[in-house]
């Protein structure tokens, strides 16, 4: 029997009937056509499917869709809605070369955002540990770590500027 769920994705309200065994990953990719979130393993080990659920990172492949009723989800598409300026994390990843095949990128960005929501002055060790659930086979992580540090600097500067105003 299908369950009715109401939830927000990237600020938009959705009301759906879903089978109880379907994952959040399936629902956002297949029903909402938000395919920026990837599926790399389906067992919560690779991090490619990471999204924010009420502001905290989760593996969307392990999260049942019914469990997000009343909650708010943010996916990679919510980082910089189409046409809008890129998020500093995205900008930095482009600049450092931290994107190769791109399949881990959305998950990396969401894990980075989860970290930068907590601190804008992360140490290299903190960045690496924040990414420890996100696997990448192309980049060797260096340019991703560099990008997150760069994004933190920029976000800190932006925050300071805002305060001055």
């Amino acid at each position, binding site marked *: 029997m299908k369950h009715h769920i109401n939830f927000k994705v990237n600020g938009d309200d959705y009301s759906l009937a879903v089978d109880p065994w379907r994952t959040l990953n399936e629902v956002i990719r297949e029903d909402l056509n938000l*395919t920026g*979130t990837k599926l790399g393993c389906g067992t919560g080990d690779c991090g490619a499917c990471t999204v924010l659920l009420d502001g905290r990172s989760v593996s969307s492949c392990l999260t049942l869709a019914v469990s997000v009723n009343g909650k708010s989800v943010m996916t990679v598409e919510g980082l910089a809605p189409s046409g809008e300026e890129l998020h500093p994390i995205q900008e930095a990843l482009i600049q450092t070369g931290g994107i*190769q*095949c791109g399949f881990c990128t959305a998950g990396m960005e969401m894990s980075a955002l989860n970290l930068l929501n907590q601190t804008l002055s992360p140490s290299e060790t903190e960045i690496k540990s924040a990414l420890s659930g996100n*696997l990448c086979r*192309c980049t060797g992580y260096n340019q991703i770590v560099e990008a997150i540090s760069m994004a933190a600097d920029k976000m800190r500067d932006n925050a300071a500027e805002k305060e001055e105003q």
Partner: protein
Amino acid sequence: MESRFKIVGQDVPRTDAEVKARGKALYTDDMKLPGMLHGQILRSPLAHARIKHIDTRRALGLPGVKAVITGQDTPKIKYGNWRLFPDTQDEYPLAVDKVRFIGDEVAAVAAIDRDTAEEAMELIEVEYEELPAVFDVDLSIKPGAPVIHDYCPTNISVNRKIKYGDVEKGFAESDYVREDIFNTHSVSHAYLEPCSALAQVDLDGRITLWTSTQVPYIVQCLLASTLNMRENDIRVIKPFVGGGFGGKMELRAWEFCAAFLARQTGCPVKFTLTREEEFITGRRRHPMKIYSKVGFRKDGTLVAKDLKIQLDGGAYNAMGPTATFLCGNFGAMLYRYPNYRFHGEHIYTNKPPASAMRGFGAPQSLYATEIQMNMAAEELGIDPIDLRLKNAQVSGDEIPDVATISSSGFIDCIKAVAEMSDWKEKRKSLPAGRGIGIGCYSFISGGVFNWFNTQYPFSAAEVRVFSDGTAHLLTMASDIGQGSDTVLKQILAEELGLKMGDIRMTSADTSMTPQADLGSWGSRVTLMAGNAVIDAAKKIKEPLFGAVSARFNLNVIHDIECVNGRVQSKSRPDYGLTFGEAVAMVQKANRGEPLVARGSYTPRGKGLVTPAFGFGAQVAEVDVDKETGLVEVKHMWTAHDCGTVINPRSVEGQLAGSIQMGLGYALSEQFVMDGGKTLNTNFVDYKMPTASDMPPSELFHVETYEPEGPMGAKEAGEGLASPTAPAISDAVYHATGYRCMDLPITPEKILRNLKKNK
């Protein structure tokens, strides 16, 4: 030194980075078509068995199931990448008579959704007659061993021999000879994007296949032959691909099944593998048993090498023949061997097939070379750096029957890493438990051998230019994440004096892009497709130069160039037109015909292996915990020679990525097998290095100019898959006295050895 290039050599951001950053890049599994069905493959639970009977009736009766096929429903045509030698084509898209490994494809289903397809799997009844299986190369070649393929009673499917000089005489003249046996293990490509294929039948019966592949042209040809269709009736499109590393360079069963089932049902059909399927059945790096005998003079000069390698190919040839061929060539690269002999055997076992994987035989072959160099250095009383300097291949060296090395920065690489790492001091003074070690590589820049038997140039490019000052580059070259689309655009922008944003690109669509390109493997794309792009650009420039010459009535001695969006005289830049104006003039002169040119590249007169060689050296410093045997890599230093660096950020990314893979190969990654069964089938049990495992690392580009390469460029990033394991291994030996002869270097092996030495 000021670069003579404007765009080549610059940190140009990758042109696909923004869509990827936004999550807008479409990979195969992101696509859906109206009425699309979901496919799933039933795989063999047995390592070796005869298929007696398959009953698909119950599965077909399940509501939502649209089709079920077995090998008997297909044209039963074998395929394999070595088309030049049809005997080596040993694989059916779906098993016909026998299954030969756990995971071998037996049947396929197309259903209205994934859940139904999965349920149908359980309803297909297969009756097997189990056969004795063999999982070890030594047992597989023994008389009386189970025969895996009827055509090959010895289970040795490929024999490859190389010989030059007189090895026996060389050993007799040597002052020091040593023989060693090395064993290397199997690892996974572990690309993040599981394989996926989506097929659609056009109204006229032709097939379009979107697939996660490194080789659209090869898939097109082999799909055509296995479906008994004409090549031109198959269109293969490579969307964004989430990494390959050699694991996506063949036609695969799900590509065939998607196309076959789409034809049968009239609906689009998509197959996407699970990670578990990838691990259970996926291609992998060849385990090799390497016997190596080397002879030196007292002063360290290499005199002879005798190399025998047995490759555990698993159940099918896959890209094994090429790996067999290449590991013997790699054995003769890097150093000067006046006398050399190689015998490689590709051996069938009832395990998942091994195939191409980053390095293509080099990580195994060079592990033996490099460890043996260090062992010899110790016994000869020569520093490993000095022993390498003495024997290093240099520009102009000839490898008999292979090629003349047109550029080598190897000596500078060795010197650079020694200096960067403070080698001489550290090799003497590091405390117990700390160690420093070296590994080096040489690698090919694409292959010359034409085992695929293509009738087309190895790479091709088409350039169309327009009066609005833009260009359109079309090429079948496949960007699988390494960034080749950006590099090829950089090369074209440089040649035509345009900006990156002026160039539109269509790549890797077999019906739209020029025939042909053999794909992304063997570090061939930059050199081969890059040369094809330059060839096309030169043909575009000729009429543009003519137009400017005519327009300004230039003396024929004027040198004309494309630069900064203009076509102009070099000495009198005011005699010139904008790029768009020049195009318009040529078009006018040709009564409206658009200005289009086609270029190509096929290596000729460059021997039978590769047109150019990359080189490099790497030093690792490690700390070994004597209580736990755990190895921590503290630092890596790398110096490499990839000719002209076209995109520094991309090259650095390739390097860091190779260190990640090399680190895993050396220390943590392996397939744990129980007979033919892969036991570690997820990323928890298959341990790939994470961000926290990455050591600090420094890189030095040794500048050379490769005459055969586009703007002096050659291989980057694949050769680097080789040096990391021997460098770490040598450092572990330096730290603990444990010399690893059988990869990977695990804490258990280190502790066992420490105990023994106590």
